[in-house]
């Protein structure tokens, strides 16, 4: 071991807690800035479903729109965004303008989670309907197979029904332009 004078040694030892506190402070600062930028959410659950085929399900449509099943998703050749939403959920309402602009880039298939067809239709009538297909998961059991813990949550389905991306939060302008659309472009090419 190298020999420091007692005073230097003491100073070095004293700097350990200081460096530790600085490290912790930096981590907190990073967490908080990422949280406000929307790139980090401490409540996110990393779903194990990522990069796996969609779980088996068949759901009825919200008339007049057609429902869909896992088989249909598995036969797709182009990406589709599946969105779990509900008329009783305020973040879902806030997400609607983004979905309405997003529908120009890729098809959006909605699943109304624990909702009544009447309320869903009313909700989409007021906010505008971005969905090409619209299914209902009345009891929320299909949602559990997908590992959702709330609404809205969205899943990007690639060719062969493989889940390529999962977003457990409302879609924002930022996630759409910086994450989702580049990814869609990447997996379509």
């Amino acid at each position, binding site marked *: 071991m190298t020999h420091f004078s007692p005073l230097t040694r003491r100073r070095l030892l004293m700097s350990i807690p200081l460096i530790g506190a600085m490290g912790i402070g930096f981590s907190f600062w990073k967490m908080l800035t990422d949280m406000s930028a929307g790139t980090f959410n401490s409540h996110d*659950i*990393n779903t*194990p479903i990522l990069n796996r085929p969609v779980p088996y399900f068949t759901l009825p449509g919200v008339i007049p729109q057609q429902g869909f099943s896992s088989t249909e998703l598995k036969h797709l050749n182009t990406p589709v965004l599946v969105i779990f939403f509900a008329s009783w959920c305020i973040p879902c309402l806030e997400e609607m303008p983004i979905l309405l602009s997003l529908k120009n880039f890729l098809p959006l298939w909605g699943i109304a989670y624990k909702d009544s067809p009447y309320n869903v239709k009313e909700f989409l009538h007021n906010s505008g309907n971005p969905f090409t297909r619209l299914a209902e998961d009345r009891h*929320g059991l299909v949602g*559990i*197979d997908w590992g959702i*813990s709330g609404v809205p949550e969205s899943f990007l389905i690639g060719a062969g029904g493989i889940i390529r991306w999962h977003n457990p939060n409302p879609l924002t302008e930022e996630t759409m332009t910086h994450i989702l659309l580049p990814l869609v472009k990447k997996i379509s090419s």
Partner: protein
Amino acid sequence: MKFSTLFKTIFVVLCILFPFSLLAVDDPEEMLPNPKAEARAEAIGEQLRCLVCQNESIEDSSSALARDLRKIVREHVAQGESNQHIINWMVQRYGAFIRLRPAFSSSTLLLWSVPFLAPFIGCFIAYFFYYRHKKTLPPHAPLTQEEKKRLNILIKDTHS
């Protein structure tokens, strides 16, 4: 009058001695008719994290998702599936995060071993600092003539 106070006292003492676990089963209809199966379902549910209120188990939480998951656990228990099978079913959908008690695996090895390692590490550090410090301290140099004189003066000062 006195009788009712006695009853109340006994009740309070009993409550303290045998605390009922306050679970969030909102509706007695949720419970399985077979008490043994119900107890097993509760034991499983207590190991599963509610994904809405993340530090509560699904048995403690009254969120809608927790209620759905409780129902699923009970359905699987009624079908006679093993505890491990039911927990795996949940992990498949929600990941290892759903387990309030993390499984022992290569990624949780450090987590599980720290409580056993910590005392050893602490003893090692204490030993290292204490003995090494003792050894490196140089013996005190004897006092010089001048210091001795000064010491004598100081001692005299206090005595007079």
